[in-house]
Every structure is written in structure tokens, then in C-alpha cells.
């Protein structure tokens, strides 16, 4: 890095030496030199601004993390590590256990992922391979992007008034207690909400598959299905997985829509049709009225746990993506 011409420090020093060696510089040269100084200065300022702005994000994330940790100290002191697997959340007696909500968050998110992945991959393949352009492609693409643009409270309302009765009828048929709300309903809502993330990313990836590869396969007599299965999927799998990871991140943190249809109970869910609760919705529900300091701190610690869960899942995801790409 030190030897490159781009290094502004080195360049300026060179220029300085040039000027001092020239005893009688003509006017044109001086002007040109001045201009290049100015350019260098702007370049430097520009670079510094960019670095500072990028670092501001870093500072923000670390700051959030530290705030969460410091604020959850009272609850950590009182409850210790037991907080993570405690099964009772009782604000009256100041007993807090995050286990039911941790379970609820993971259950809803992964269930949502299982439901949504076939749909988002299908959308990605249709848009990336079958109909890369044309009005149909545009329409579908815009509709899928619209899914991401709808505010989550609207999904919540729709869930409460449309999906819940449907799920209740379904539950009546399979013979579980017909509540309508619960883990399953929130997973369905979530799965719809996260489709665009994996779909858009997958579409871009599939369109980036080099045509010589596909053409080669076709010339060898491969059918479309075979091309998708043996050329496109292997070529794009790290990208597709990254899209799924994005979806998961969204599902983990979704609050409003889930709160409205999950049933909000601190009891541990018995099956996927039972009501439950997620970490994000507990925080949203109980934060305003958390009167005692330990209660407030326990809720903040819940935020910290959610933060860490997201970080861990992201790290595992990155690992998997890296392994895919290395192959």
C-alpha cells in the first residue's frame, strides 16, 4: 500500500520535491500544481468522510450492545444465567425466565422459513430463469417487492381478521383446541412477510449465472429441469442461502404482526398450534408498564438475548455461505 501512486501522502511529498528543485517555475506549472494539491486535499477529505461515516455505524452497533449490557446488569445480578432457561415469567414475584420466549422466537422464525423457502425459491426461479423480462416478469417482481413494503401492522390486522378464522377451522378439523391464534398462525404471517428477501436475492443470483454454462448444458441435451437442478442451483446456492439468512433475520425481529396473532402467553407452547410469545413481542407488550427496576432490566436483557441470537445465527450463516463458496 505504501508504494502505490494512490497514496496521497507520498504523492504530495514527491510534488514538493519537484517544486523545490525547479528554481523558476513557469505560471502554467504553478497553476497545475495548485490544482493537483486541491484535488489531493478533496480526495483526502472525501476518503476521511467516508471512513468516518462507515465507522459511525460500527460505533452505533457497539454502543447499542454496551447499552443493552449495562442496563441488564440488575437483572443479571438477581437471576444469573438461570434467566436463559427459566420457564417462569412472573413480574409479580420478580421471577424472570426467557426460555418460553426464546423457544417462541426460534419456533416461529424457523417454521416461517420452512413455509416460505419453497415459495421464494419458486419466485426466484420463475423470475430469474423462465421469465427474465416482459410484462409478466415486471408485474410479479413488483408484487413481490410490494410484500416487503406493506407495514407489518397491516399484516397483523389481516392475520387477526382473515387468517385466524381460517386456522381455527383447520384446527377444528384436525382436532386440536380451536384457538386460531398461536405459533402456527404467526409463522404463516411471517412466512409471507419474508418471501421477498429470499426471492429478490435469489432472482439476482440466478440471472448472474453465465449463459455459456447453461448453453453448454443444453447443447449436451439437458432439459430445463436438469439445467436448473445441476447448473443453476449449485452455481447460486451461496447466494440463495444468503437470501434465506436475510429472511430469517427479518423473521426473528418481527414484532407487531406476531404480537397480534401469537396469543401472547408466557406458558411454554405444547405444540405448534398453542399460543406462545416471542422475545420481540414481550418487549413491545410489557415495556411501557414495567414498573419495577428489575422488571425493566429483565426486559432489556431479553433484548440483549435477541441481539445475541441474531448475531450467532448470522455468524453460523456466514460460515455456511463461506463453505458453499469454497467448494
Amino acid at each position: 500500500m505504501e508504494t502505490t501512486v494512490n497514496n496521497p501522502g507520498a504523492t504530495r511529498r514527491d510534488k514538493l520535491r519537484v517544486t523545490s528543485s525547479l528554481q523558476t517555475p513557469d505560471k502554467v506549472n504553478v497553476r497545475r500544481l495548485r490544482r493537483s494539491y486541491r484535488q489531493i486535499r478533496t480526495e483526502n477529505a472525501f476518503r476521511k468522510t467516508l471512513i468516518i461515516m462507515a465507522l459511525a455505524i460500527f460505533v452505533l452497533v457497539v454502543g447499542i450492545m454496551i447499552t443493552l449490557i449495562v442496563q441488564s446488569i440488575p437483572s443479571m445480578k438477581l437471576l444469573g444465567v438461570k434467566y436463559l432457561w427459566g420457564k417462569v415469567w412472573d413480574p409479580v414475584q420478580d421471577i424472570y425466565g426467557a426460555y418460553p420466549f426464546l423457544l417462541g422466537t426460534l419456533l416461529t422464525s424457523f417454521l416461517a422459513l420452512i413455509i416460505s423457502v419453497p415459495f421464494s425459491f419458486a419466485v426466484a426461479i420463475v423470475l430469474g430463469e423462465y421469465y427474465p423480462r416482459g410484462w409478466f416478469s415486471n408485474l410479479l417482481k413488483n408484487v413481490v417487492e410490494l410484500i416487503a413494503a406493506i407495514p407489518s401492522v397491516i399484516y397483523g390486522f389481516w392475520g387477526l381478521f382473515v387468517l385466524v378464522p381460517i386456522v381455527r377451522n383447520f384446527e377444528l378439523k384436525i382436532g386440536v383446541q380451536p384457538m386460531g391464534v398461536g405459533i402456527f398462525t404467526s409463522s404463516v404471517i411471517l412466512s409471507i412477510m419474508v418471501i421477498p428477501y429470499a426471492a429478490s436475492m435469489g432472482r439476482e443470483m440466478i440471472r448472474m449465472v453465465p449463459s455459456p454454462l447453461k448453453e453448454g448444458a443444453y447443447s449436451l441435451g439437458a432439459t430445463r429441469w436438469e439445467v436448473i437442478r445441476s447448473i443453476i442451483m449449485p452455481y447460486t446456492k451461496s447466494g440463495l442461502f444468503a437470501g434465506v439468512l436475510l429472511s430469517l433475520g427479518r423473521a426473528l425481529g418481527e414484532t407487531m404482526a406476531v404480537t397480534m396473532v401469537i396469543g401472547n402467553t408466557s406458558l411454554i407452547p405444547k405444540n405448534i398450534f398453542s399460543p406462545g410469545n416471542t422475545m420481540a413481542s414481550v418487549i413491545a407488550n410489557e415495556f411501557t408498564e414495567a414498573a419495577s427496576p428489575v422488571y425493566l432490566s429483565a426486559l432489556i436483557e431479553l433484548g440483549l438475548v435477541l441481539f445475541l441470537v441474531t448475531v450467532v445465527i448470522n455468524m453460523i450463516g456466514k460460515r455456511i455461505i463461506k463453505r458453499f463458496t469454497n467448494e
Partner: protein
Amino acid sequence: MKLLKNITIAGLVVAICGAMTLQSCNGGGSAATNDSTKTEDNTILGAGSSFDNPLFSKMFAEYNKTTGLKVNYQSVGSGAGILQLTNKTVDFGASDAPMNAKQDSATNGTAVLHIPVTAGAVVLTYNLADVKDTLKITPNVLAEIFLGTIKKWNDAKIAADNKGVKLPNIEIVVVHRSDGSGTSNIFTTYLSKVSKDWETKVGKGSAVNWPAGQGGKGNEGVAGIVKQTPGAIGYVELAYAVQNNMAFAKMQNKAGNFIVPSVATTSASANVQLPADSKISLTNTDAADGYPISGFSWVLIYKEQKYGDRSIDKATKMLKLLQWVIHDGQQYSSALNYAPLPDAAVKVADDILKSATYDGKPVLQ
């Protein structure tokens, strides 16, 4: 590369400092607010109970017409209101529950006055399409339903109080509030009073560990689930139930009468001997015609009004406002389905207001 490393370290330091500043905001925020209130001396800041918000909006708008005093009330919830009063970022707080021991200790021994301003009731709403009569519920049955021990609507214990009503053989779906709220506090306080089981297993509070059922966010959340779920029973504020034409049950009170919840029966429940500090739960009172699941809502202020850089002018303005609220302001209650304070309660509230001091001297005569 070295530059980048240095900047990274600098960034970390800034992050830590930033977090510390956020920390200190809790304690130091009051100073900033005091400065801002100094410039607009004609504004009173309040925060707290969302239950009081519609009534306060009406009252403060009317008061503004006659006096020009602006009241900025933030409906952030009772707990948050108490917290803001403790941090001295507001002039008054409002809460549906009196301050508990923990909250009291947070004010460092400064006395806080509780002034009752209105009363509300919590009603039981249910979804039984085929039942046309109003259900009658006794305290024990209610506790057992919410404990999850009575599971079916045609349970003998419910049928015993509702002779002649054909109760369906379906499961009871219990619906409670998922967010912490004063409504839950009144409801669980009532259940703790009437049922030993409830008191030991669950207890009272604005958020409790519900032994059964599912939660809805806000009155509208509970009402939404109840309306949609056959066999559901939930509790909502009286005002909400009346405005939305919901079916609600008659509750048996301490005197043994089954009472239909209404503004009048809620006021009636407050018509009892009140303690001088007014910190009393109106649940299950002795009043013979009172609805048993009722509760006061209080405005909270510091007894000693000279703190920070408050002027006597501001303290007087606020106390006059509160005095108006408990007297003339009460006329706006009934139209909004709030229970007006009975005369006895107004008298107690008046005495409490007069005990407020500025620099040791009483403010109101």
C-alpha cells in the same frame, strides 16, 4: 492500515462514551427538561395512564379555553408516568394503581400525593352466540375460569348462577391483556381479594403470569379475539365495551347483588369511607349497589412543590388545574363513560390537594 486501526480504536472509545452518556440520561435528563419548562411557563407537563387520556384531553381542552393554560399530557402508560415523575421530567404523573413500595423507594423518600380524578370499571365480555340473556358471574366462578380450573361453559358452577340459561358444551377460551396495564391491575387486584388461590398462585399487578388463556394487546386486542372466538371470555374497560356495544356480564358484589356495570354503579362503588391518602382499591367494596371490579385513577404530584427550579407560579397553576379537575371538570366524565367522583371522594381529594406545599407553606387555601 495503521490509520484504519487507530480510527477503529477511536471508534470503540466513542461507542463506549456514547453508551455511558445514554446511561446518564436517566438521571440527568431532568435538568434539560427543567430548562425547557422555564421558557414556557404556561405549560404543564403530565404523563401516565392511557386510560385517563380521552378524559384528560377533553378536560384540559376545556380548561385551556377559560384560563389559557396549556397541558401537555403524554399517554405513555401508568408505569412510565410514575417513572417520569420519579425522574422529575414531568409536573404530574397519572396512574391507575397507587405507587407500590418499590416505586416509593425510588423517589428517595420524597412524599408523593395521590389525587383521585376519576373511576373506571373493568367488565367481562364473552362470545356465546346462542346465549341471549346476560350471564351472571360470581367471584369464585370468575377466579376459577381465569385460573383455568373451570374449562367448559356448561360447568355446573356456572349453571348454578344462571338458571334457565342454556349454556353450550364448548371450551372456555380465556383472553387477557398481553401488555402491562392498569386494567389488568384492577382485575387481578379484584381476583386476589376474592380468591385465595389466585392470591397465592398469581397475585396482582399490571402484568402477571397468567395461568391460562391467551393475550391480546390493548382493549382492542382483547375485544378482537373475544369477538372472533366462540366461547371466549375476556375483560375490557367499561368505556370501551359501551362504545363498541359489547355484551357484558353481571358481577356479584360483596353484598351478594348481581350488578350490571355502568358509570352509575362504578361511582356507587366509590361511595365508601375513604382513607385520608385516598390510596384504596375500589374492588369488592361494601357498597351494596356498587359494581365490584372498579378502581380509581390518580394524578400523582410531589407534596413539596419546590424542587429543581420550579417557580411558585407554576406550582399554583398546576394545583389550581387539579382542583378544577376534581370539581368542575367532573361534568365531562359521564359523557365519555368515566365514572364521576362521588362527593365524599371529591372532599378527600380536595384535602389532599390543600396539603401540597411550596417551600413548606401550603399553596391552596
